[in-house]
């Protein structure tokens, strides 16, 4: 697992107010999933990808990120092509079975696939350009409950720690031949998962002590927002408005 964290530390998009970024992304997503043709989602995809590349995200990282959603997109097209629609486009026979591709099915499939491409790219762009802490602060501003935000912050921080621990345990087990053979591998895997839960318990105790010692009283301080900058807000509103117009065509 490789979590892609922020890229493009000096890019203007990174410096943008996280609230503005989040709202713009949400607006784009809504437009993408309610678009009628596949031109708009593809436009969003192209734009987002270009921005990602401009921010210095390596092509390889982008490719890995998109492998899975695009695979799903392919699957959807396949499903729709052969199993829905009425207008036959072509047909062939496989192992004595006639498979019929449908024109309308294909179009519907492509629409969904294009939405996947657009939405995934826009989200990826948001992820690359914003740090998790900033996003959480933006969500808090959107009135997402504090409890949720705090849990997410702890989860994010300890994700890496626990992931490292999981890897270390995995390596020690491997080091001691714990994954030779399927049964043994499964057992080792169960132990690993259990050990992680125990680790989570113990760490939660010790961090609580560490935090209480340093004045924790049940709420974590959040990142404070700087005031909105007029230019940023105006610019992004114009952008969203323009996209809205394109969406409408």
């Amino acid at each position: 697992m490789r979590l892609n964290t922020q890229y493009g530390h000096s890019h203007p998009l990174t410096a943008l107010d996280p609230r503005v970024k989040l709202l713009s992304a949400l607006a784009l997503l809504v437009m993408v999933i309610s678009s009628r043709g596949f031109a708009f989602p593809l436009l969003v995809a192209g734009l987002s990808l270009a921005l990602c590349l401009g921010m210095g995200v390596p092509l390889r990282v982008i490719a890995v990120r998109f492998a899975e959603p695009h695979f799903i997109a392919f699957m959807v097209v396949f499903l729709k092509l052969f199993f829905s629609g009425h207008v036959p486009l072509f047909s062939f026979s496989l192992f004595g079975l006639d498979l019929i591709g449908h024109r309308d099915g294909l179009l519907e499939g492509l629409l969904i696939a294009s939405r996947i491409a657009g939405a995934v790219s826009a989200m990826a762009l948001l992820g690359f350009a914003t740090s998790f802490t900033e996003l959480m602060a933006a969500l808090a501003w959107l009135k997402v409950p504090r409890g949720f935000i705090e849990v997410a912050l702890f989860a994010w921080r300890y994700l890496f720690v626990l992931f490292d621990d999981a890897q270390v345990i995995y390596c020690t087990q491997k080091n001691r031949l714990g994954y030779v053979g399927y049964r043994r591998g499964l057992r080792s895997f169960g132990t690993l998962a259990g050990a992680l839960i125990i680790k989570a318990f113990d760490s939660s105790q010790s961090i609580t002590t560490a935090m209480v010692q340093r004045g924790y009283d049940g709420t974590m301080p959040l990142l404070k927002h700087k005031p909105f900058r007029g230019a940023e807000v105006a610019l992004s509103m114009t952008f969203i408005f323009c996209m809205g117009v394109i969406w409408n065509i």
Partner: protein
Amino acid sequence: MQKIITTIILLAVATPAHAMHISEGILPFNWAALWFAVAVPFVALGVKRLNALAKDDLSFKPLVGLMAAVVFIISCMPVPVPTAGTCSHPCGTGVAAILVGPFVSILITAVALLIQALFLSHGGLTTWGADIVSMGVVGSFAGWFAFRGLRMAGASLGVAGFAAGLMTDWATYFTTSVELASGIRGDAPFWPLFWKILIAFIPTQLPLGILEGAMTAGMVVLLYKKRPDLLVKMRVLKAEEVAA
């Protein structure tokens, strides 16, 4: 005959994907909004329960956060599935439900899903609601009811844990199939598509459910052997049961 071959083709296509999450962008606006509307009250109840429990125990919020991280990691671990010859991924919600109860477990799933959506492109923001419903709400309740029900009927920790993992997994996939079928069907009829998706999942999900059951059972039993105090603390067991 046609059915069988259809299934085989679908299989070959569907299995390598982690079909657990509904990908970003698949659901049209109406469906996305509907699932959000279903998910929100449950998550809100989860937050309420969290706040209530955290009042007496400062370490509860960090604990829930860490559990979310564990669920995240478990659901990213590739598990080789022998029948399909590929890797798939367990959910991990079952354990969470057993340990912290269904509502907080929904919250945990929501957090894990959000992080996956943002930084891995597994699942998505527009499909967040749908994924919370399938993995969080349905998964947690299925697991929790299975565990508690069997425990009340006198089953051992291992058996109840197994059932919880199994039910979580299968219930999640069943719901995912419903969501997917209704989301992508367009104007095609719902049921044929639903069955096709469900059948496509079966070769991976049937064994994966069993594996998840085994894993959950293993974890619960490991906890029991290694740290019974934790099970008591989380009110999975009573103090007397451990001492005995």
